[in-house]
């Protein structure tokens, strides 16, 4: 069935480098995408979101890119810091009607930042 998935389950980067976390989605009806960061023992924390009428959105040290042609989403983290080490989840919305707003989550990518 259609689902949100991730290309890599783990990613290791050096402190100060840029990180890119990828996410593939298969539902062409998806119109809203969101990234969460989850540290061990905590609930997911909102990072950034993007709607399908945009290709790029920037936040503080983060950028989300959306390529609807190939159904690909990426999260770029600039100057990665040890505090960025966490599991990163992408999620999409494609429901309409009464379940509008329900998010479908991918499996997650573990980002490890080495000093």
């Amino acid at each position, binding site marked *: 069935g259609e689902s949100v998935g991730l290309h890599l389950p783990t990613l290791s980067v050096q402190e100060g480098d840029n990180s890119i976390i990828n996410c593939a989605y298969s539902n062409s009806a998806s119109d809203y995408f969101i990234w969460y960061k989850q540290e061990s023992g905590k609930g997911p924390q909102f990072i950034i*979101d993007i709607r399908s009428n945009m290709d790029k959105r920037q936040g503080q040290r983060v950028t989300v890119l959306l390529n609807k042609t190939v159904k690909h989403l990426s999260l770029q983290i600039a100057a990665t810091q040890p505090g960025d080490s966490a599991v990163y989840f992408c999620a999409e919305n494609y429901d309409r009607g009464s379940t509008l707003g*329900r998010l479908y989550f991918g499996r997650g990518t573990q980002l490890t930042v080495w000093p």
Partner: protein
Amino acid sequence: GAGVSQSPSNKVTEKGKDVELRCDPISGHTALYWYRQSLGQGLEFLIYFQGNSAPDKSGLPSDRFSAERTGGSVSTLTIQRTQQEDSAVYLCASSLKRGPYEQYFGPGTRLTVT
């Protein structure tokens, strides 16, 4: 301001017992969601409340699971006759209005069924 809170933070119960998990959403948020996260896995949708509308229960894994939301605020997730496969972290999230908008998550309740 106060975020989403959940209680208890940890719950250990014996197989066959009933458990209740509580969620206090952010004040003013009309949408409330419950998810389940098994070890090393993503988030599995369970149930969705939006205002006074009938909840979307399509994610509940069995009829042993139920949830209610009183007064459009606090929600309780009840699991009856718990099984070992129910062991997971149960996460609650709320959002300002009917989606799709960012959902704010609580810290979760870690349920262990022995």
